[in-house]
């Protein structure tokens, strides 16, 4: 469903060229739960952004359902992200002047019932009319998860989704993600391998490459 071949992402640091992602190839099936682990700076977040069309590679290609994301215009990639992909970041990035329900609807305006249902299932139904500053970090992250899956995406990308959470909240957030992204593939980038229990595959990265 989603594949990448020989992906490279380089950036200039003074006179030197640094490879954040260095010739990575990967293929993901429908409904597969893939974990990407590695130390800080290993290139796992950069790989996630390349797979999601948030960044364009220096070379190589990303294909989603036989269409090359890397050949699409910025607007086409935005449309693809909006319709097919969901995102959870380390910081929930909720919009401060919107309630929890409205934040979820930012990803799918025409799904108010599903947004309310998801918030209930994620245990934050009582926060529907609350603003982000009125919620705990764990509650905010659950709202962000609801926002990532409200439009039934084909792939959910989660970048360190539990980094700001304590143990019990982290387990809860991953469980929520697994349950509600179950219709599509799930990518979770983390340096905490313990949250990837039950994943179909764990890919280990260092220095921009997968460890063999």
């Amino acid at each position, binding site marked *: 469903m989603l594949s990448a071949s020989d992906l490279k992402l380089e950036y200039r640091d003074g006179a030197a060229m640094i490879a954040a992602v260095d010739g990575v190839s990967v293929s993901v099936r429908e409904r597969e739960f893939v974990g990407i682990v590695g130390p800080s700076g290993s290139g796992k977040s950069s790989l996630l952004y390349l797979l999601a069309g948030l960044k364009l590679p220096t070379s190589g290609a990303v294909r989603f359902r036989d269409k090359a994301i890397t050949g699409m215009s910025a*607007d086409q990639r*935005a449309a693809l992200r*909006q319709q097919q992909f969901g995102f959870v970041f380390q910081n929930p990035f909720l*919009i401060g002047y919107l309630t929890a329900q409205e934040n979820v609807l930012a*990803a799918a305006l025409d799904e108010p019932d599903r947004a309310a249902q998801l918030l209930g299932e994620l245990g934050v139904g009582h926060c529907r009319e609350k603003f982000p500053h009125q919620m705990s970090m764990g509650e905010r992250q659950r709202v962000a998860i609801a926002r990532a899956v409200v439009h039934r995406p084909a792939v959910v990308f989660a970048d360190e989704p539990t980094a700001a959470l304590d143990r019990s909240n982290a387990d809860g957030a991953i469980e929520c993600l697994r349950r509600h992204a179950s219709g599509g593939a799930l990518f979770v980038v983390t340096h905490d391998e313990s949250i990837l229990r039950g994943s179909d595959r764990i890919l280990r990265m260092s220095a921009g490459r997968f460890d063999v």
Partner: protein
Amino acid sequence: MDRTGLTVAGRLPAPESNEVVMHEWLMAANGWTVGQEFGIDVNEDDWMPGRFKIVGVLSGPAPMGFASHEFMSNDARYSFAPKLWERLLVVAKPGREAEMNAFLRTLKTAKAFDEARAIEEVEESFENIEVVAQVISVLLMLVVALVVGLLNNIFFAQRIDEFAVLLALGWRRGRLLRKVLGESAVIATVSWGVGIIWSLAIMAALDRWVLAPRGIFIPVVHAVPIAFSGLLPFVAMLFGGVTVFRRLGGLDPIVIIERRG
């Protein structure tokens, strides 16, 4: 007096005296009271020097004053002066004012000074001032637009997380720009409306308590300044839109997400 629509409080000047009656607007503008004397005997810039005593106040539609004809004709100070103080008051029969004014304007030996002529002369004397005022208004508008542009930069910086995450979620830049422009339009229009209401309230208060008591009469509600101020929300939106468009064009959501991450 009856036919002019003027009424007098006090009395008319006594013959051959320096007494005058003045219109209430002039009284207010100069801060005069009945019984007071004004003017000085020697003033080379004054075509009607001398001291005059106010004995009555005129009320009515025409701002004028009356002095004693005998006094003005016989006093030595006015012997060699052109009789600029001498006017013929012409009052139209009911319903024939326009016809009379039109006739008076055809006269070659006299200058008719009706309301329209008065407005014309005042407008002519203010013509250059109006040009200067318009230039100042345009400059002010540019300054306001610049300020709005700078405020939009601050506003953009404050909401950069929001824009970044919406771009990451798949909002197109055009949609984001429309959202921001829509918000700006609502804020600019509401602010303009509130500003107009406040301005009218302040003008009404100034008119009542400051200007009118001094004999200065300006219209509180005037279409031209209101229409002119209507450009402000558009200029503000234009500058705000251009600023946000430029900032959005260069925004990489991942840079923001990684920085805040």
